[in-house]
């Protein structure tokens, strides 16, 4: 009870602190204590075999949970990676053993950092598309979500009115 109201207070404060443009209500999906916000992806160049998935994952519970898998209708596999560019070298490290989301924690999958990689795409992704998918959490179970597809170089989630956003 107290925890819930504290969380609500905190969320309000956090949203209040964000730039106004980001405070639009994003799509929200829930399973158990897990809340997933604004899943999105980027359009893929012609013939590309990989795509990416981004979202915010919040754990509103008191126990840690883990994102252990997922799927989309457009790709054969779903993997979670961390991309880094350190000293000019681009690398991708797979997240081994699932992505942990601690109690009260928000983990953000975003360009240039943690991301879902959609492997072996069966079709290209175009701006304005939506892609159905599932996320599998160790405790919260299966969560059905829908990714909104933005431009090739998009840095933030597309909004309904602006799917061609470049940055």
């Amino acid at each position, binding site marked *: 009870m107290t925890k819930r109201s504290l969380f609500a207070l905190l969320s309000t404060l956090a949203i209040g602190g964000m730039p106004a443009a980001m405070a639009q209500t994003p799509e929200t999906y829930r399973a158990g204590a897990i809340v997933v916000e604004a899943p999105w992806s980027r359009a893929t160049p012609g013939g590309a075999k*990989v795509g990416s998935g981004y979202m915010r994952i919040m754990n509103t519970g008191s126990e840690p949970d883990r994102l252990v898998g997922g799927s989309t209708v457009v790709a054969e596999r779903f993997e979670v990676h961390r*991309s880094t560019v350190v000293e000019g070298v681009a690398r991708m490290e797979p997240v081994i053993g699932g992505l942990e989301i601690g109690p009260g924690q928000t983990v953000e999958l975003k360009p240039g950092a943690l991301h879902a*990689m959609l*492997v072996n795409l069966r079709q290209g992704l175009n701006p304005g598309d939506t892609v159905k998918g599932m996320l599998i959490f160790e405790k919260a179970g299966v969560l059905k979500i829908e990714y909104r597809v933005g431009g*090739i170089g998009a840095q933030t989630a597309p909004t309904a009115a602006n799917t061609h956003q470049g940055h």
Partner: protein
Amino acid sequence: MSSTLKIIRWVAFTLIAVLLLQIGFFAWHWYRRETSGSRFAQPVITTTGVPDVGGPFSLVNHRGERVTQDTFKGKPTVYFFGFTHCPEVCPTTLFEMTQHLKELGPDADRLNVVFVTVDPERDTPELLKTYMESFDPRIVALTGTPEEVTAAAKAFRVAYRKVPTEGGNYTMEHSASVIVTDAQGGFVSLIDYHEDKATALAKLKRAIRG
């Protein structure tokens, strides 16, 4: 009891973190505004002689034609290395390069832009042709035999490595910097992946002016 304390502590930490982030954000913006256009924007680097980056290569472009370093002589040239099974860095670089060319307007025709794959096994000229249709048509993509690609990467001092992933797949680690050469193929500058668009564009303009 202890759980309430924990929550309070957590709330306090989060609030402090949010506050610090905001202070940092504003400070950064202020700093950027104060220093843009000053010597910070374009650090002066003094070297003795020209770094030995760039050299002979022989590869195939996405239209299936054999090309060498001589193909690109006569115009300053931008080279970067990557691969198409790359979810983020490579499409982002190609997308940004497309935007730079648009910004340059007619001057863009005085520049070659070359994308070299480090994954010749999967990146055939046919696949590259389809892939490049999503970007500025002036950007040329190059591939070759694994040996030819190794030789080209070596000439440009570009490191790359195959890294196995789940399910018998692999990904590539590679230098993500953009290399700018002059019209004779001599090294001019590097554009780091994290450099902002304005700085990158300024470097391209400088290369075009010679």
